[in-house]
């Protein structure tokens, strides 16, 4: 009873310490930590965009489930509330874009902002413009035309607005963007970076609050999407899946251990080893790095699944009549070798060069060391000397399994065939699509795609970018680059900051090119000949042009008075440290190579093919992980050779290699593409597989009863390990979330293969031959 209290007390202490540590330690979620340091400027730009680019701050919302008029009312109420909320840099819902003050500012600067050149002010052009005015006045749109026609007959202002509006391809109804359904659409940009999960959660909450405050009728729904929503949604999905699987596997493992050891205490024993490992891993990583990466924590705890086996092996490996302490001491060399080889496999990751992987390696390695120490010294101290009674395995099962070494030839032949088949099929296929790695549910991704399509937000594939010492230089450089690319025919159209706000130099050049007052007056009079305009009808136009010629250009500091223009400009031009960055978004690219050639001719211009660069980064990440795993593999082999000699080492290595081979072949047959999650799971699998092999071949063959009993006990331990692993990680295969599914499937297939191979490759025994 006292021991039970001590066991439960230790467990509570460890769990409490772990919970406290996780609360105190800073946990980061920057995915960039899991990508290798970029080798190219393009890669660096992409990483930065992934971390906090404008694209990651976009929130898309759809409101549906009510008549269009209600949706429009909700949309307007939400937009007003969100625009007043300091968390959003921009809120758009399709309602009248430009306010009166801003319209006046843009109207005043129309000749500097409009791309129409001096050709618009020749006599023939003016004549055509005046005829156009007349047409407009005849038309049903006359009241609209009349509002600006006499001050702006060349249509510079309307052209400006039309150029902006032409980019939004959303239909409006009841004054707001409305897609089929009906579904009102809203677009917002948060000030906080997309990967600042807390701030994004606040932004999402602000949307929900604004929706609730708009008094939606029953049935109306708010749909939200965007990277920030994704982060929250992903966390929620993974948590929900993990919670369900945890409860289920706790019940199953508990039931299994209860059957196997006739006592629920074994569950607590396993938990002690795991908690000790997780605590040690977190503390060591936090001490070395100052923070713990969330993903390193997740992957690390997954890998600690290896450690769950250690106490099982100690308790089950006890011979009848043997004290648990004695058994632990007897088994220790094998246990030590198993842990040492697992750690050796992880250590090279410390040198991998990107912090995420190093943290993962450090976490798992220190966790395993703590867990094996706990199994060796803590567990025997917390259990009664006689350990726990172990129920024997069904006779037929153990006899069949122990007879497997007789079929070694056939199994090895089969493995060879699998290897050839896998090689012929081209090996396992790697997943190169970031979306497939996302734990965001497919339905949410589909909604995002739909909202994006409806809003007309471009799916940017290629981005050109450059930096300059100041905003004016960046604008000039962007204008030059866009002109050069268009002249080379490299793209159909290019959106760039100069289209929204031309550089001061361009504005000045445009204003300087305006004709002098008397010249314009003379041309206008000539152009008016025969048309029914009264003299002086266009006096506002002449005055406006004269005024414009003396005007200072509009520059970024003025834009506080022009929120729409500022919002349009922000994604394309922004300060970055001491410099300014401009983005150019080409569309209608027919020949990527031609675009690259044309871009190469512009100094300082980077071409970032988002998909290709992302794939390259991912490949580099996976490649680096694989290389360091291979280095780990070599260390493992060396250790095994040292511990078990050449033959014994090869035996264990054979089990490992065979299990990995069968696993990846099975994944290929199931049509799975290999992701980083499969690889992490493979590490776990390699660790437990090695334990199986080491324990199944622990004692050298001898012909006595002892040898056979020893083999049966080893089998009993290993089969327990395998079944608990299957009941925990294997269950994850049933989840839909890619990370959990991949881990679960790999481990489930792998541990069964490793177990059977460990049985098959175990040394032959007389009694079974």
């Amino acid at each position, binding site marked *: 009873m006292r021991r039970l209290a001590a066991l439960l007390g230790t467990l509570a202490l460890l769990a409490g310490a772990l919970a406290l540590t996780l609360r105190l330690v800073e946990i980061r979620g920057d995915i960039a930590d899991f990508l290798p340091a970029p080798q190219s400027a393009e890669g660096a730009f992409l990483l930065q965009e992934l971390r906090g680019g404008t694209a990651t701050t976009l929130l898309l919302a759809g409101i549906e489930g009510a008549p269009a*008029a209600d949706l*429009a009312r909700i949309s307007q109420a939400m937009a007003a509330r969100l625009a007043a909320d300091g968390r959003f840099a921009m809120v758009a819902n399709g*309602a*009248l874009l430009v306010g009166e003050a801003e319209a006046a500012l843009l109207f005043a600067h129309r000749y500097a902002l409009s791309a129409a050149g001096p050709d618009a002010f020749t006599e023939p052009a003016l004549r055509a413009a005046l005829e*156009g005015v*007349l*047409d407009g*006045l*005849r*038309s*049903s*749109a*006359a*009241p609209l035309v*009349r509002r600006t026609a*006499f001050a702006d007959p060349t249509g510079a202002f309307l052209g400006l607005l039309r150029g902006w509006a032409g980019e939004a391809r959303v*239909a*409006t*109804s*009841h*004054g*707001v963007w409305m897609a089929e359904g009906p579904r009102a659409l809203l677009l917002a940009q948060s000030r906080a970076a997309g990967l600042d999960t807390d701030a994004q959660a606040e932004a999402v909450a602000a949307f929900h609050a604004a929706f609730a405050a708009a008094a939606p009728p029953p049935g109306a729904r708010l749909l939200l999407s965007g990277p920030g929503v994704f982060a929250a949604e992903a966390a929620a999905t993974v948590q929900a899946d993990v919670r369900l699987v945890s409860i289920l596997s706790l019940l199953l493992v508990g039931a299994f251990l209860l059957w196997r050891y006739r006592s629920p205490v074994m569950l607590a024993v396993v938990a002690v080893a795991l908690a000790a490992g997780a605590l040690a891993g977190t503390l060591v990583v936090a001490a070395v790095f100052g923070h713990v990466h969330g993903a390193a924590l997740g992957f690390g705890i997954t890998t600690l699944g290896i450690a769950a086996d250690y106490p099982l092996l100690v308790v089950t490996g006890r011979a009848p009549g043997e004290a648990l302490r004695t058994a632990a001491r007897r088994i220790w060399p094998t246990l030590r070798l198993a842990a040492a080889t697992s750690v050796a496999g992880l250590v090279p990751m410390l040198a991998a060069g990107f912090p995420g992987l190093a943290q993962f390696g450090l976490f798992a390695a220190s966790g395993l060391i703590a867990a094996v120490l706990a199994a060796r010294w803590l567990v025997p101290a917390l259990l009664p000397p006689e350990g726990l009674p172990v129920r024997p395995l069904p006779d037929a099962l153990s006899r069949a399994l122990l007879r497997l070494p007789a079929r070694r030839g056939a199994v090895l032949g089969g493995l060879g065939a699998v290897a050839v088949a896998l090689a012929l099929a081209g090996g396992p296929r790697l997943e190169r699509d970031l979306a497939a790695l996302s734990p965001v549910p497919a339905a949410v991704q589909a909604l995002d795609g739909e909202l994006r399509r409806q809003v007309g937000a471009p799916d940017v594939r290629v981005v050109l970018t450059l930096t300059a010492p100041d905003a004016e230089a960046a604008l000039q450089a962007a204008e030059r680059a866009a002109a050069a690319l268009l002249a080379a025919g490299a793209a159909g159209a290019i959106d760039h900051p100069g289209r929204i706000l031309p550089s001061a130099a361009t504005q000045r050049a445009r204003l300087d090119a305006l004709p002098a007052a008397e010249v314009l007056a003379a041309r206008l009079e000539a152009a008016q000949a025969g048309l*029914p*305009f*009264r003299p002086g*009808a266009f006096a506002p136009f002449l005055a406006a042009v004269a005024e414009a010629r003396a005007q200072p250009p509009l520059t970024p500091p003025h834009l506080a008075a022009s929120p729409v223009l500022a919002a349009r400009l922000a994604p394309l031009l922004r300060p970055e440290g001491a410099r300014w960055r401009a983005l150019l978004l080409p569309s209608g690219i027919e020949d990527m190579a031609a675009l690259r050639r044309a871009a190469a001719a512009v100094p300082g211009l980077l071409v970032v093919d988002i998909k290709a660069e992302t794939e390259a980064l991912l490949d580099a990440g996976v490649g680096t992980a694989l290389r360091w795993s291979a280095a780990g593999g070599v260390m493992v082999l060396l250790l095994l050779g040292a511990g078990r000699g050449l033959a014994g080492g090869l035996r264990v290595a054979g089990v490992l290699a065979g299990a990995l081979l069968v696993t990846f072949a099975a994944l290929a047959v199931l049509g799975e593409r290999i992701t980083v999650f499969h690889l992490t799971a493979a590490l776990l699998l390699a660790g437990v597989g090695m334990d199986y092999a080491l324990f199944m071949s622990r004692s050298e063959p001898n012909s006595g009863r002892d040898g056979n009993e020893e083999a049966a006990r080893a089998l009993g331990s290993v089969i327990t390990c395998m079944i608990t692993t299957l009941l925990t990680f294997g269950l994850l295969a049933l989840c839909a979330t890619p990370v959990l599914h991949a881990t679960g499937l790999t481990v489930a297939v792998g541990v069964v293969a490793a177990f059977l191979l460990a049985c098959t490759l175990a040394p032959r025994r007389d009694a079974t031959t």
Partner: protein
Amino acid sequence: MARRGAVARRALLALALPLPLAAQAPDPLAAVMAGLAAVRESRAAFVEEKEMPELDRPLVSRGVLLWRAPDRLEKRTLEPVPETFLVEGDRVTLERPQRGVRETIDLDASPEIRPLVEAIRATLAGDLATLRAHHEVAFTGDARAWRLRLVPRSPRVRAAVQRIVLEGEGAFLRLVETQGNEGRSRMMATPLP
């Protein structure tokens, strides 16, 4: 011509009505609206003259008007510049093929345009409630020859358009005259078969 015949017949019919029956319908505006509402489809040729302060002579254009109950009105200008102005439901489409213009606006999004559209459309539909929702309506004349004087209720609209006068004969809308600070426009219609 058949149409004009129908109007004449209806006028005769109205004359021939015995007094007690006329007393049962004492509201001539309601009678005009009922007559307009009974027309499911009609076609008319129009001539429009616009006068503006900046112009020294009116702009003239011609075309056809097509009406289909309950809410489709098409004003197809044929000369001098082809243009189609179509109101259907809450959607207004303006098409000027020579300039490559095709614009669609939503009446709900344009509170300053809807009253001007409804002035004509709700009249053709015989929908007095909608007409009154947007305008003060004054009726003069009788069911044979009538005159509606509309003043927009919205001050914003009234700032641009002070009044709209519609004249008709029986169930035929003959004249629409709009007086705004942008000038004055007169659209005169003649029925087409």
